[in-house]
């Protein structure tokens, strides 16, 4: 089968400034340029540390596969998703994706506290890449899934955390891209919420959607994913045996 996602020689490096603060100011930049123009023009590079978050990553993913991405904090899992989601660009390499990509790196991205539940459904769904027509068509379904019908005309700042999460997940669950990227979204919410999310995700993946799924939840990874990627020190590897990898990850990660 032809891959739906093809990643070749993917690398991402960050250049860390040694002397400057994280958020430089225009004043600093101007003063720096004036006081040491030669350093800036000549060997500006050498004063920086280079951090490779991902280095020479290659993989193919076929349509309908559900990929669980595991690894320790800071290993580069989220960076990998952010590159696939086009939020940040790779430093090297190329990725071809033969389908639309929907990313859900956070629950409720772009929710505005002063807008009502109804308004936020439209806003959030648009931000996640749905067309107005699509949202209209799925609106009732989203509301039913969220179980917040009675509060639809109320600003979401008055919602309880549970209501807020349910509404946000309901919108995201109705995204229909060919490739779906999920980052730790199930870590929030109570058990009932997580069960509901897992059930919905199972449904989504059974529809032939390709899913990339970062999680620390062993149960979620075991229950949903048919492939596992281990991200470690900027490298992405696929273990022969998924169970052993998960076991190892538990040892490493705890």
């Amino acid at each position: 089968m032809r891959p739906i996602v093809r990643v070749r020689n993917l690398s991402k490096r960050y250049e860390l400034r040694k002397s400057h603060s994280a958020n430089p100011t225009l004043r600093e930049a101007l003063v720096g340029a004036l006081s040491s123009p030669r350093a800036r023009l000549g060997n500006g590079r050498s004063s920086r540390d280079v951090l490779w978050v991902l280095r020479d990553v290659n993989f193919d993913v076929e349509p309908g596969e559900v990929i669980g991405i595991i690894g320790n904090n800071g290993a580069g899992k989220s960076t990998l998703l952010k590159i696939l989601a086009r939020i940040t660009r790779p430093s090297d390499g190329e990725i071809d994706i033969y389908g639309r990509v929907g990313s859900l790196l956070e629950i409720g991205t772009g929710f505005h506290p002063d807008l009502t539940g109804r308004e936020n459904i439209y806003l959030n769904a648009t931000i996640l890449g749905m067309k107005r027509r699509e949202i209209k068509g799925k609106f009732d379904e989203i509301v039913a899934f969220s179980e917040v019908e009675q509060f639809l005309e109320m600003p979401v700042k008055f919602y309880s955390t549970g209501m807020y999460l349910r509404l946000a997940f309901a919108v995201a669950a109705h995204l229909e891209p060919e490739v779906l990227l999920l980052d730790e979204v199930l870590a929030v919410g109570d058990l009932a919420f997580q069960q509901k999310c897992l059930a919905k995700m199972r449904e989504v993946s059974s529809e032939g959607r390709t899913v990339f799924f970062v999680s620390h939840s062993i149960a979620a990874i075991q229950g949903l994913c048919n492939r596992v990627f281990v991200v470690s020190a900027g490298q992405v590897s696929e273990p022969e045996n998924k169970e052993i990898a998960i076991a190892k990850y538990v040892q490493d990660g705890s």
Partner: protein
Amino acid sequence: MINENARASAPRTSGSLQPTSDLLHSAFLLPEEPVIRIRPSRPFRFINLSEVWAYRDLFYFFVWRDLKVRYKQTVLGALWVILQPLLMTLIFVVFLGIVVHVPTEHVPYPLFLYAALLTWTFFSNAIASSSYSLVVNAPMITKVYFPRVIVPVAAVAVRLSDFLIASVILLVLLVYYGVRPSWNLFMLPPLVVHLTILATGIGLWLSALNVKYRDVGTVIPVLLQLWMFVSPIIYPASLVPARWRMIYNLNPLVGIIENVRASLFGLPFDRGSMISSAVITLLILVYSAYVFHRMEDEFADVV
């Protein structure tokens, strides 16, 4: 559930074990060409206009959100939009109109002022809010992909709608002072478009700069204040000595505001300032688009 387990333990090489027909279906429909190509950033690229067009719904919702939130959060809502240029007009009429005589070609000074202050208010608000737009929307920028250019442009569009609302007062003043409409009025829409492009250009540039250098936001209000006084807002451009006019016209607002007045009050247009303004606006837009595009890829890493 049984299917799930079967799938989970199936060796990944055997496609035949994949259970649903949907799956095969979607596989057959894979397009020949990639839908998305992700490559390292290159310094010179053109803005992908067709992609921006594909995200027009999002643009619409950003504008809609900002308007909606503003009217929910403020008591006076739309009234503020009208009050801002009106109060400024009042202040200048009281403190300037009485003390000094400003030559206005027989146009009543309040009208002369309001026309320019209305235009100026749009321009300065558009720049101020678009310059902050990327920073304000940072949580979104680090979580979802969309063409970033939508954010500052939507901020300008919000201010444009304010401008259109506040224009109603201008209409009232024109009628009150008995100004007879002339053919010159047909130049008004192109001038507003020109002004919007200028504000967008500067807004794009400052919004990108603001992501990288946070003190840009502190400087902007001061520079805007200065800009207001080097523009023919509370005085006509004709007060500027002829030998300085060439330099004065380098301010692209001169051509716009002078000619907005000319079109409203049926006065002769000033071609010189108009042309220099158009050229400078174009240069600013090209430069801003370049800067914005070059910095765009870094936003999520820096913001």
